[in-house]
């Protein structure tokens, strides 16, 4: 597509260049103990909302959080759930991005793990032997 001028090249930045869809979406998130927390279902970006006029000098959008939530239906059929239904994992908690995303914090206090904790406390822990270490 012809434009008035060529797109400016991406500025050289310290650090890595990641593709959000390839490297972040659907990746496993693991806490600092190596326990899986969830998969990444969506990403939260800071910055102006869609379809608003950009004033000159607006800061570029920044990745602020990983999102997880009931997105299976919407990922397949389209649309997205309202933000209030998605659970945030702040980007500041992410310590490493590789084949999996590693967090620097324990999953114990994250909202993203509430289903696991609920099932653990209300169901599994009540069955005898639920806390027994098999190793």
């Amino acid at each position, binding site marked *: 597509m012809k434009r008035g001028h060529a797109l400016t090249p991406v500025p050289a930045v310290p650090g890595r260049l990641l593709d959000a869809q390839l490297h972040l979406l*659907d*990746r*496993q*998130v693991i806490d600092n103990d190596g*326990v*899986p*927390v*969830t*998969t990444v279902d969506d990403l939260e970006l800071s910055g102006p909302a869609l379809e608003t006029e950009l004033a000159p000098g607006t800061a570029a959008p920044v990745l602020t959080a990983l999102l997880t939530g009931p997105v*299976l239906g919407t*990922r*397949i059929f389209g649309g997205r759930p309202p933000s209030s239904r998605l659970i945030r994992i702040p980007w500041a908690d992410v310590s490493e991005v590789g*084949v*999996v995303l590693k967090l620097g914090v324990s999953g114990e206090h994250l909202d993203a793990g509430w*289903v*696991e*904790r609920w*099932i*653990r406390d209300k*169901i*599994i*822990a009540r*069955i005898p*032997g*639920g*806390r*027994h*270490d*098999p*190793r």
Partner: protein
Amino acid sequence: MKRLLGVALGVLTAIGGFVDIGDLVTNAVVGSRFGLSLVWVVGVGVLGICLFANMSGRVAAASGRATFEVIRERLGPRAGLANLSASFLINLMTVTAEIGGVALALQLASSVHYLLWIPVAALAVWLVVWRVKFSIMENVTGLLGLTLIVFAVALFLLKPDWGNLAGQALAPAVPAEETAPTYWYYAIALFGAAMTPYEVFFFSSGAVEEGWSIKDLVQSRINVLVGFPLGGLLSVAIAGCAAVVLLPAGIAVTSLSQVILPVAEGAGKVGLAFVLVGLVAATFGAALETTLSSGYTLAQFFGWSWGKFRRPAQAARFHLAMIICLFIGLAVLVTGVDPVLVTEYSVVFSAIALPLTYLPILIVANDPQYMGQHVNGRPVNVLAMVYLVIILAASLAAIPLMIVTGAGS
């Protein structure tokens, strides 16, 4: 010496763990109706499962991730969900069939009606999944399952006409009393029984459970390449026994009790004792593996914490999912549906689902980001592509043949 023992244990467990209720029933039905004219399918199936189990073990060892975890990342949620649904539903059917098989085997041993054994079997499966360490579980059921070698022993003791048997196996032909569509229907069933999808998920998740790394690849390769073919030979022995005793008597296998009659004829009460132990061990082991596979597929797709190496409290959704699966299997069985019928359908549906479950493994095994230098070599890829064609053909032909032959009757 210790390494040698470790290798031997791995191989023996692979042999003993190969046969499940699907293999038992399908091979016996085929032997009693078609003689050994479908043995070539077992060969094709064994080669296929060796190929794909090897691949999935390599994926787990090289990347530290089990197959299903990677499928969603690689293929996206839509394809991943299709894969998950097919695999999970077939798995659930197989869990039901295996628990039914345990109950039937216990009925044969005790003459207590199998419906009474079903809750016992389901509870026992759950207890082992809940408490017993992974390696102990695998080794005990695998080694006890080795007693099914009595099928091969009984076959020798029956002193069959080996030339005739070899002729049936090497020059396959549709027997006079059966039709060509039925022949091919049972070929697909036998193929699905040999290449069970859960085996691959279990193998790769088991590799992660036991903490395999690259240096364990040699052991895994030996387990697969020696253990699985020998397990395939066991399947052939089951068909052979049925072909030698049941086929001439005009008996078509429809229940588990008919499967063991040739062993009793060849090896007497001692053989009977061995085969009953083997039946219970093989079906119980397979019930454990399929239950765990249900948990693995769900947990790995949704990103839950999973694994028997973790305390149940640390893998809560994983264990809850398995409990629910066992309940569903139990509920289906207590309605009185014939477990052998469930088994016969589960192997055909396994064959139908094979392309969905195996294609992702092939894709992942070729991905350098996960595999590093251990991606598939050219010969493996060529063979895998050939198998994909076979799998696709079997999958597409299964439903029409099922309709035409009335599910093999």
